[in-house]
């Protein structure tokens, strides 16, 4: 009876549908200004936000910052699948191909060519290559990510060993390592299972994970096996690197900070923390030379524009502003990145402060190259980590672990 006093059922249904429609509408309000997606730590956001504020002040174009600190590439894909593509997206060269291949990003090559303020020559050619896919440029690079050897000068001094310097070799590494190792307490060099960190050993022996056309795994070929064996021997044969038991849950970057590692292979992003934290004297040196040279990666991250964005002109303005000398300097000053621009790299913004030999990061660009990034990059990375684990602990010889792994990688490469 009481219900009669309310709406009739049909009217109620209408009201409910209307409410649902309103709710659905909430999901897609008109955007104010440019949507810009990025990842990054809180410290990084503290650098980025004033840059964006400055952009809005100069151009009167508001920017809606979409910050996905974790699993960025995965979240970006969801956003793209939901047809809510941000106008401007920060992207790494590892994640780029998946999106570029599906036509999410605009080819920025022609824009850059015509632009009066910005040109390809403002950036290192290696990072331009990293931000390209099938010959087209999909991102204007912010940084150049490569690897060097961080070393603890105090430990070298205590052992009376000369610091590593450009041109030093794997043989040199084997020669000095015993003097920098005190079993159970101190190790000459770090050991990390992440593919990014051990690929320089493989590359510098002339091998690679896959061939240039990314159609076949080459990890079971002799040069790659030599590289892997050299790496594994550092730990399991010579004991110059800590075992899992010895390092416990500590990562190499922590062991280094604790003064228990003389050297380890790592990237520029460790610098801001080390500037604040390290109580000993430290510096960086290039990765040692192998039979094929001293080859580390030159990966990159940069800003791309959504091909379907209705605000192409404003988006390009933002990308240009972010990639300008002034903005890149802001990112560089904290020590966080190796800048994509030689003009910033060769200035105090990058070279001042610790480490004293920051120039090393720039010198190794010459011989570096981006990782090969096939469509199945994520899955292959997982396979590498899982299947090489028994080799890293010495339970299985490298050759035995690599053979089935390589077959699997080749299958994944052919799949896509």
């Amino acid at each position, binding site marked *: 009876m009481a219900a009669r006093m309310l709406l009739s059922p049909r009217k109620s249904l209408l009201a409910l549908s209307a409410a649902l429609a309103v709710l659905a509408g909430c999901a897609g309000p008109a955007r104010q200004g440019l949507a810009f997606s990025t990842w990054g730590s809180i410290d990084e956001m503290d650098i980025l936000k004033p840059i964006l504020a400055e952009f809005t002040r100069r151009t009167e174009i508001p920017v809606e910052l979409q910050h996905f600190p974790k699993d960025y590439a995965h979240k970006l894909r*969801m956003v793209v699948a939901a047809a809510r593509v941000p106008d401007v997206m920060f992207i790494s060269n590892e994640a780029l191909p998946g999106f570029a291949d599906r036509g999410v990003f605009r080819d920025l090559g022609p824009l850059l060519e015509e632009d009066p303020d910005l040109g390809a020559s403002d950036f290192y050619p290696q990072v331009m290559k990293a931000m390209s896919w099938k010959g087209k440029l999909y991102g204007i690079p912010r940084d150049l990510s490569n690897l060097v050897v961080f070393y603890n000068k105090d430990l070298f001094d205590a052992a009376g060993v000369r610091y590593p310097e450009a041109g030093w070799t794997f043989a040199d590494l084997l020669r000095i390592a015993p003097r920098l190792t005190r079993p159970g307490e101190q190790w000459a060099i770090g050991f990390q299972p992440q593919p990014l960190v051990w690929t320089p050993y493989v590359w510098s022996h002339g091998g690679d994970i896959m061939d240039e056309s990314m159609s076949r795994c080459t990890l079971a070929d002799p040069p790659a096996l030599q590289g892997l064996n050299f790496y594994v021997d550092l730990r399991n044969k010579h004991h110059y690197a800590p075992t*899992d038991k010895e390092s416990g849950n500590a990562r190499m970057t922590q062991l280094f900070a604790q003064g228990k590692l003389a050297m380890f292979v790592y990237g520029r992003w460790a610098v801001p923390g080390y500037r604040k934290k390290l109580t000993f004297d430290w510096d960086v040196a290039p990765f040692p030379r192998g039979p094929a040279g001293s080859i580390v990666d030159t990966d990159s991250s940069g800003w791309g524009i959504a091909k379907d964005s209705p605000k192409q002109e404003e988006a390009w303005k933002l990308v240009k502003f972010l990639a300008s000398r002034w903005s890149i300097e802001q990112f560089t000053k904290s020590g966080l990145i190796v800048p994509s621009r030689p003009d910033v790299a060769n200035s105090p913004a990058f070279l001042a402060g610790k480490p004293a030999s920051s120039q090393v990061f720039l010198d190794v660009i010459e011989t570096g190259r981006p990782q090969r990034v096939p469509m199945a990059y994520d899955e292959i990375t997982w396979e590498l980590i899982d299947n090489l684990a028994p080799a890293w602990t010495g339970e299985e010889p490298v050759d035995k672990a690599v053979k089935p792994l390589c077959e699997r990688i080749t299958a994944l490469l052919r799949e896509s």
Partner: protein
Amino acid sequence: MGVESLPAGPSKGHPLRHEANWAWLFIMPALAVIGVFSLLPTVGSFAISFTSWDLLGTPRWVGMDNYQALLQDPLFYKVVGNTLWFVVLYVVLDMVIALALAVALNQKIRGLAIFRTAYFLPVVTSMVAVSIVWEWIYDPGFGILNVVIGWFGAEKVHWLSDPRFALPCLVVMSVWKSLGYTMILFLAGLQAIPPEYTEAAAVDGASGVTRFFRITMPLLGPTLLLVGIMATIRAFQTFDSVYLMTQGGPRRATTVVVYWLFQNAFTYFKLGKASALAYMLFAVLLALTLMQWSLRKRWVHQEEGT
């Protein structure tokens, strides 16, 4: 239904129709939610399981390829093995310990309410918080577990990074978390058993153990069945603890079906393969539940009488 009401068309005033409309209206919010968030994705993912799709491009029809590829993938069998191992360990531990606790807490002892609350607390605690605490417990360097086994001269164990221990470690944590819930169900079952039965058996001279296995257990049949089915399903669906603590490692030792499904869908973006996996899991769960259901005649003695 009266003949007179037939030509009346939309029959505005018919009380039955009217009531049906009201009924629809009342269940519509629930129906809409279930439809949009449950039914639609269920049907949709079945269709997706026959395609190759990476979320960005258009889905491509591949027929049974995803199912076939899964059956040929050695990793699939490892994942299935992990999952079954998890399920067996979990269900047995969860049920045995919870039943023992329920029997213990079914007596009149001091501080009963405190004990019952204490065992139920982990159930209402978020898995994220639980995982963080247990990560400390399992920590090889500072974890209390290694400290305790150290008192007995045992060497430090890398609980979560040793492929032999990682999965059992997750099982123990999951059992600890759900124990209170299972215990409550058993308590309810125990309290539904009329005390006259056990009293009569006691008068006949049956010992405590005999009374438990000959009177209590058979009468607990329906509860055992329910708890068994629920625990099995819960174990098959394990995801959060793996995601939070081991990410499927070390060396895939803790990659269970739902975690692998998640990886395929949202890390490798193989939506078709992930959906096929979901339907294979569904088929297994359905078969298991039907099996448990058909076994109920043997377990559930109460139903025989009625």
